[in-house]
């Protein structure tokens, strides 16, 4: 009895002592539920593969993210957990994305991020060390919203802001130089108050030798390099790619003009032969207040390659070649042509990676959003996408761009109603007219008239 009392006292004391420390702890995150209806197979992630006479489908998915930060203003420990499931999924099991079945009880917690952030006292410098979320300065074309392990630093020397970073994509044998690393260095200048210019240099050092894991591989998978492209390259040994680029934004009266461009060069070496990488990307975007709302117009070109027999690869290598969703270009708010910023478990696009399997893309889109009433916001977007070059995109030959590059045109719209602070309910719908690229096979012969695509969702989101 006395022992029990002592234990209770100890617990109460521990809680009391911990309380002041908790004062600098914050909890943020969201729980989002999407009820989908569409005519293409989703509830997963990746490239949409159109087909004929597609049945419609419906399902409900859910994601919860919990961001816990504790520490003080100079140092914080951050843990980001994620729980994903589909309604009616499995129960009494173990595994990510499971646990929505009857009785749930599934071990399904995912560690999204875990890192320490700290500032150097009385300077503008801060460091983030651990598994963290980073994006490039190119709207996610190279890596966007990417969870990666590494060390990133920011500091500012007015008027220049600098970001330096190193990430370990893949650690192979710890006693060999056979890893995949990304290094970044960025400097953002503000030459005038209305203009910001960034000069960036990234370096992708893949010494993984094409080994299974996260090294660049040559195989049939849609998010790896097309073997036909690297013809003659046997036993990929190392890939070294340098990526200099610029980005800018400028306030021009009522509009903001922004954009970026980068060039990717380097070499993919095999034990026999090698390929020179020569990809490039350009993007231009205008945002403006138009009438009662705001609108945007954006065009992006990602280079592709249409010559499989030479020793040049004119597409771009992105983090999407290393893992699905490593590259995530989504800011034109498409629901079908490209992945969407609002995606959770179900995340699809006619092209999921702007490299588009080596074919590249040309995409133009516009959108408009406005407050319809005090708590009601509406938005509409329209976009067109095509491959940058004629070429077969994958070995499967299900669809390709051998004869036609047009992939599709999309319109979508949504309205969101704010029920109370943080809680929104929204209705989303999108429709895409498939381009002619989906009608032909690798020889250019018309094979079938694939169905246009549509999708819709009812979304409930609580952000806290």
């Amino acid at each position: 009895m006395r022992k029990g009392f002592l234990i209770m006292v100890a617990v109460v004391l521990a809680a009391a002592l911990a309380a002041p420390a908790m004062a600098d702890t914050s909890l943020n995150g969201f729980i989002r539920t999407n009820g989908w209806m569409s005519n293409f197979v989703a509830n997963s992630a990746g490239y949409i593969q159109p087909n004929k006479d597609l049945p419609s489908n419906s399902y409900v998915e859910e994601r919860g993210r919990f961001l816990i930060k504790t520490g003080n203003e100079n140092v914080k420990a951050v843990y980001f957990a994620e729980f994903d499931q589909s309604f009616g999924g499995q129960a009494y099991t173990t595994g990510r994305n499971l646990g929505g079945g009857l009785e749930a009880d599934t071990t399904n917690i995912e560690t999204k991020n875990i890192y320490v952030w700290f500032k150097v006292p009385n300077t503008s410098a801060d460091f983030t060390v651990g598994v963290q979320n980073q994006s490039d300065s190119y709207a996610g074309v190279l890596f966007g919203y990417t969870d990666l392990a590494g060390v990133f630093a920011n500091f500012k020397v007015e008027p220049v802001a600098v970001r330096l970073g190193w990430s370990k994509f893949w650690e192979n044998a710890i006693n060999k130089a056979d890893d995949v690393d990304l290094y970044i260095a960025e400097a953002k200048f503000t030459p005038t108050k209305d203009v910001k210019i960034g000069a960036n240099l990234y370096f992708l050092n893949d010494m993984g030798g094409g080994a299974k894991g996260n090294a660049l591989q040559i195989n049939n998978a849609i998010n790896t390099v097309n073997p036909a492209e690297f013809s003659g390259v046997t036993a990929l040994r190392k890939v070294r790619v340098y990526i200099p680029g610029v980005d800018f934004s400028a306030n021009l009266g009522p509009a903001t003009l922004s954009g970026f461009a980068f060039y990717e060069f380097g070499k993919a070496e095999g034990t026999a032969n090698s390929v020179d990488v020569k990809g490039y990307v350009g993007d231009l975007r205008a945002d403006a207040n138009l009438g009662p709302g705001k609108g945007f117009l954006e065009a992006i070109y990602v280079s592709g390659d249409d010559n499989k027999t030479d020793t040049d690869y004119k597409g771009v290598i992105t983090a999407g070649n290393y893992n699905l969703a490593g590259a995530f270009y989504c800011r034109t708010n498409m629901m079908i042509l490209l992945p969407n910023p609002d995606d959770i478990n179900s995340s699809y696009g006619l092209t999921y990676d702007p490299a588009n399997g080596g074919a590249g893309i040309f995409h133009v889109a516009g959108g408009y959003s406005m407050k319809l009433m005090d708590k009601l916001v509406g938005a509409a977007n329209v976009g067109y996408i095509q491959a940058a070059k004629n070429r077969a995109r994958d070995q499967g030959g299900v669809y390709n761009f051998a004869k036609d590059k047009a992939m599709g045109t999309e319109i979508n719209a949504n309205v969101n109603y704010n029920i109370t602070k943080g809680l929104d309910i929204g209705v989303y719908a999108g429709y895409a007219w498939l381009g002619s690229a989906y009608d032909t096979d690798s020889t250019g012969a018309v094979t079938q008239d694939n169905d246009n695509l549509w999708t819709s969702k009812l979304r409930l989101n609580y952000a806290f």
Partner: protein
Amino acid sequence: MRSHFVRHKAFQVLGALLLLSFVPVFSVPASAAGYSRRIAIAPFASLTKEDIGATVSVLPRLLASRLMALAGADVVLLPADGKAPEAAAKEAKVPLLLQGTVSKLGKGYSVDTTVTDLETGKTAGAFFAAAATEDDIIAQLGVLSGEISEKLFGVQGAIRATAPPASAGASSAPVMVPVPAGIPSIGGAPAVAAQAPPPAPVPATLDEGWTPSSIKKVGQSDKIADEIYGVVAGDVDADGNGEVLTWGRNTIYVYRVKGTDVLPYTRISRGVQNHFLNVDAIDLDGDGKKDLVVTDREGDRMVSFVLLRKGDGFAETPGRFPYHLAVLRGWNGKNVVAGQRQGNSEPFQGKIYAMKWDGKVLSEGEPLPLNTSILPVSAGGVYSLSPAVLGSDGQWLYVDVEEKLRVLGAGGKSVYRSKDTFGAASDRFEYGEFSRLEGRRPFFVLRRPPRWISGPKGASLVLVTEVRKGLVSNALGSFESSRVVLLQWEGGGFSERAGSPKSDLFFSGVDLLPPGKMRRGSRAIASVIEEAGSAFKEKASQLVLLRVE
């Protein structure tokens, strides 16, 4: 028995003498403004479509009784369906005629009266009162009768005496109504002149050694159907009467403080696309009247603007400025507008500037000597920045993004950080690109500035809101309790001197009336959110008038 009778008579004589001795003290010239206390009151007219005829019909009689009680006035009530009021009043041989109307004012009512000097035909005075509800109209007659008694009949202290009682929970000292000797009161207990000996002088200012000990609620406005995110004093006289301004997402509400009343005056609204991040008052054009600088965001663009004082209203100037704006009170001895640009993908960019006004445009002047590259200003920007002299040094008060009260050195280095949270934000704005990780755009919380008050020997005071939050509760507007506190800087830290009772409502801002000065009985105005808007409940807020004792 005889001695008892004599003593009794002596007391009576002494009492009469004492009473008489008060007559010259409290009685005033019968016609301070040149008018005798004889007045006719015509029936009031209702200018609203609402059915308030029953209330309006009794106003003349109620006003008459109050004027008779307060000023001993001889009042003639004119019949409703008689001849013309002027003719009827002249026939009654009274020199003044009071006519009144009741009209709709927003969700409340305005009671307006004019008094005509029948001899000259000119207006002797105009008086008004605002009522939040129909029931409040009668309550506001006290204010009207007090003003008329004081300004027309010269009854000193009548306005104060007739101020409405403090609302529940507030306590205020009982007010002795001065009544001229021999005048019977009507409609209530006879008012008796104070006979107690004058109290010993007590310190009334900080310099005299007065120490604030409590902050009490003495009045409140009507309900404002909005979430109000802050409050700032406009043109306010030394007694704390005048204009105060509060704002919601896209509406500025101008109120007038008169005694313990907080009355709606006007409002300035913009479309739903607009988002007012801050509203501040400063005399920009040197006309002695405070103008308004409004930090406004339309979509993602800063479109801040200036409203210049014109007569009783405000006129918008055509310029739009891409700056976050805040007024720094007493920076280098003067009030200045501080401005900081919005960045391209971040909430703030570069230095904070003292802005210049050329009559049309706000432009950058000299940069403030603050390092905006280091915490806490690097994260929090210009909002909540407030110059202060603590001890003998010029410093800054600041509420950081974690809502801790800071003292910054002249260059911006933090020298003090509070444990508790002060100046907490009730509003925020989003900026930059959508974060997939957190499922929303980054946001920036709009903390409210602490109000610095100079004290003796460097013992500065700070008036600020305090918001207590749960251990891990950091959602905007989520809190356990809030209140207004008065802190004193001593020994390198702040200690509490006075505070209002804890409230379940959210105190979103506070300001002193007039700003920067405090003495015993000083008043402060606070913005209070009663209900955050949602699909379940309508937004509701109010302004609360506080008194420091």
